[in-house]
């Protein structure tokens, strides 16, 4: 049996101390980690179970409209929190477009941020993977590349980050609260992840033992609630990772965009925020011209990492669609199939 230490600390500081030992991993719901351990993909020597730590499973609302989501809040609980969904509808939509109900009932906010890539070569221990074994090489290069990255990839790694949740979060300036041996620090989610470069095994800025305590959304982010959407294109309607997804959020006054937020999922090893595209929309009229220009800017640096050039054109189209949907306005009710264009399938057929 794969023998590992299992520690269930009583407090955050005990957890941090326990996990500072090399070879440790935090365990929350385990929806990803346990699978990886069963497959021999990761083999932590010490599991620090934080799932029972007190005080990390609440949603706090602040007077300015912002909120703080404890790291142990379940994805489903967060998505179905009416106050939360009203203020951050695109985030709720993204949450509900991910995984399956069973997984969402278990998976935690902190765990979602730290889920590993779904690159098949990472999961297959017979394949070479720099992320799994630094320096081993990357079998994904020249292999199955259809779903791999088109932005920010390196020769060492072309994988993508699989989270839906993180895409609108990064667009809305989410802050990650981290506790470590040297105290507490805040890191914007946008700079929480590292691009692969030559060290794809280092996925985030977390140092040994550091624990995510919460994710904060600022009050200013709630100002986008009226025009915020998440759109996700995948190979089947549910229980599939995004080929490409986009979170779009607008503040509109008299048909003009005051501020825009835009981030892409499924295109890079991190949720990909594109400020240049956002800036290009400020002060512009909502509409296809504005959105197309934004899409072109968002994908200007995109490069296929293999046989996946289609993702670049697809991403452009998803950006335009997501921005157009956001401009129309957040729907009053969550679509039956969140983040999917399939929701609006009913209606009379028109002949053109």
């Amino acid at each position, binding site marked *: *049996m*794969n023998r590992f230490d299992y520690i269930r600390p009583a407090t955050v500081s005990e957890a941090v101390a326990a996990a500072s030992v090399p070879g440790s991993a935090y365990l929350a719901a385990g929806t990803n980690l346990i699978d990886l351990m*069963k*497959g*021999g993909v990761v083999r932590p020597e010490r599991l620090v179970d934080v799932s029972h730590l007190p005080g990390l499973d609440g949603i706090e609302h602040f007077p300015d409209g912002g909120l703080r989501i404890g790291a142990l809040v379940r994805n489903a609980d967060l998505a179905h929190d009416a106050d939360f969904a009203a203020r951050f509808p695109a985030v709720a939509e993204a949450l509900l477009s991910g995984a399956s109900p069973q997984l969402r009932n278990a998976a935690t906010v902190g765990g979602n941020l730290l889920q590993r890539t*779904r690159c*098949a*070569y990472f*999961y*297959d*221990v*017979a*394949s070479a993977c720099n992320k799994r074994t630094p320096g081993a090489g990357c*079998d994904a290069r*020249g*292999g*199955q590349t*259809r779903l791999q990255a088109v932005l920010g990839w390196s020769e060492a790694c072309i994988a993508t980050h699989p989270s839906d949740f993180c895409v609108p979060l990064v667009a809305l300036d989410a802050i990650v609260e981290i506790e470590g041996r040297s105290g507490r620090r805040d890191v914007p989610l946008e700079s929480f992840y590292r691009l692969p470069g030559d060290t794809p095994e280092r996925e985030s800025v977390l140092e040994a033992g550091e624990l995510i305590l919460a994710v904060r959304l600022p009050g200013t982010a709630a100002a986008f609630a009226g025009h915020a959407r998440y759109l996700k*294109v995948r*190979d*089947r*309607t*549910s*229980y*599939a*990772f995004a*080929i490409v997804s986009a979170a779009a959020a607008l503040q509109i006054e008299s048909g003009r965009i005051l501020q825009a937020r835009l981030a892409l999922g499924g295109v890079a090893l991190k949720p990909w925020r594109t400020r240049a595209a956002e800036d290009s929309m400020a002060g512009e009229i909502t509409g*296809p011209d504005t959105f*197309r220009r934004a899409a072109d800017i968002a994908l200007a640096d995109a490069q296929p990492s293999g046989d996946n050039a*289609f*993702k670049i*054109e*697809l991403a*452009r*189209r*998803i950006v*335009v*669609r997501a921005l157009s949907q956001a401009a129309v306005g957040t729907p009053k009710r969550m679509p039956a*199939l969140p983040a999917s*264009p*399939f929701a*609006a*399938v009913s*209606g*009379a*057929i*028109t*002949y*053109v």
Partner: protein
Amino acid sequence: MDFNEAAGTNPIDQTRVVGHAHDRVDGPLKVSGRATYAYEFHNEAPDAAYGYMLGAGIGKGRIEALDTAAAEAAPGVLLVLTHRNAPEQGKKGKGSARAQMASAEVRNFDDPVAFVVAESFEQAREAAHMIRVRYVTEPGRFDLVAERGNAKKPEPKGSTLADTAVGDFEAGFAAAPVQLDVTYTTPDQSHAMIEPHATLAIWHCDRLTVYTSNQMPNWAQHGLASILQMEPTDVRVISRYIGGGFGSKLFVYGDIIITAMAARKLQRPVKMALTRPQIFNHTSHRPATIQRLRIGATPDGAITAIGHEVWCGNQEGGTFETAANQTRLLYAGKHRMTSHRLAVLDLPVGNAMRAPGEAVGLMALECAVDELAERLRMDPIELRVMNDTQFDPETGPERPFSSRKFVECLRTGADRFGWAKRNPKPGQMRDGHWLIGIGVAGAIRENLTMKSAARVTLDPQGQVIVESSMTDIGTGTYTVHAQIAAEMMGVPMERVIVHMGDTDMPEAAGSGGSWGANSSGSGVYAACDKLRRVLAQKAGFNADDVVFAGGKLSQGNRSVTLESLADPQGLSVEAEIDFGDLTKRYAQASFGAHFCEVGVDLATAEVRVRRLMSVAAAGRILNPKTARSQCIGGMTMGIGAALMEQCVVDTRHGYFVNHDLAEYHVPVHADIPDMDVIFLEELDDKSSPLKAKGIGELGICGVGAAVANAVYNACGVRIRDYPLTLDKILPHLPPMV
């Protein structure tokens, strides 16, 4: 009982029980978790040790060095079996059984390298991970497209010849005023059933019992006996419930053989289940195909020449995918040819998956017919109707179809689906950002029959017990056997007890090729027929006009209860149905038509199936409820084949990369709209005494083409490379508005 002549009127025609929608008799057991699957026979082997298979991490080559010391020393480990200490084995056996870990050679990815047995599953798995293997990798042939030129004419596969020819196809095609020449490709597909291959092996002295998940227990029994060099009578295979098979469990894989070897060595029961990734690479898959269709026609739509050529690959000695087979029978045409060419590939073994041949053959043929209709400016239904044939077009009117309601399927479906609303010009129907299209495809699946025996026992309480080695792979065979016995013996279904899936019981047809219910049900019919005669004689009745009803035998005014005729230990008879040459004298197949409406997103090229309707004519429908479920399952699988299913081959390393159910996509509920299934009234008296035909695979046959034709009608993009994922459609859509 020999079945050599068309069935006359028989007790099944009463249809008091047969032909009605009955719930599954095993349903309550399944939904309450009490149905015992292969890995769950805890009471039979409370001391079972756990095995874990380590599969090869290369596609082709050999093991150069193997270090098992750490694994052997690991806690709880009882045995590490490798090619170095595996017992001598026979090379090959029935059910595609082949020796496991017999040498250092690696035949394909996840070919077993070691098998670790330990006190717990976790101990076995961890120890397996400790084994260090050094391979010598040899260049493998992993790419069908690259190997196409090296493909050779294969040996016949059963009765299917590699090549067929009638008339002069080349000349006929060249002379045809309208010609279509198109090539379609289909990818490798995986069965993706829920229950993994799993086995518990128990030895009692020199007799072996395996509890396993296998569609053909008798094949497994004989295959295992050959490999283990035993008498088949010393091998008992039990396969009581099967959590899906789709052909994956027709055959014998490492789980069965290795578990048996390990249990013998340890003199202790051993169980193992393949991991999900191992199912993809260690067991079989439906092989990829390249298919060229050439159809020549007159301007008014009469097909004059039809040719279907197939290229596929398999390991040395493997069989070919019979994808051109249906083209021999579906449409008329004077000049005809089919051919299959087989390349040697070093990928995992290819073999049968639901409707082998037709499932992918029709995905090409029925799209080609759609393409031909457009070229002819004809309605695709009218084109099919015009080229219907009521006899085998290769042999002529002397070999008619036993029954064929293909045209009726098309007409009924067209009417019910609203085919008239379809605009033949693509891209004309819109619903918001969706382009809407409607497509049709025909379905044919050869009707196969297999001899099948059963034992029927009348016990003193008047219960009827039906026993055979038949399997129920989730299709409803327990229920159908109960219906047939109830009908024959004149008792309510509650008084019938069905046992199956045990080679100690009379040998039945097993589950495969859609022959299960019809063949094994006929075996039950034969046994019941015999029991009726025995009982009639015992009661002093003239056998021919005894009525079995209400738990009694009656003749005139006299009636006798069944139970009064049973011996204290029960009255048992056994009989076998043996099918004669009726399939030679008559072409036999089930037919159908599928109608599909899809939406294609204008911007993203996502395809959404909005409606799917199938009309099927498959002889007597023994149980409309389970038959409908079978069709819906097939239709769902057909949608998967059209839109998403694909084993992605890493052509450098020779394995299927997407080897789990998160990455190998089958449709989820949200992908499947409301589906309609319509069964046409039909009795086929040349097929069996039940007058039924195969239904289990008909549901998938042609569905992929109906979806693809609908996609074309929606957006005018013809993709000839399955699956129709959005990346293939996207470049052909108009620029974003």
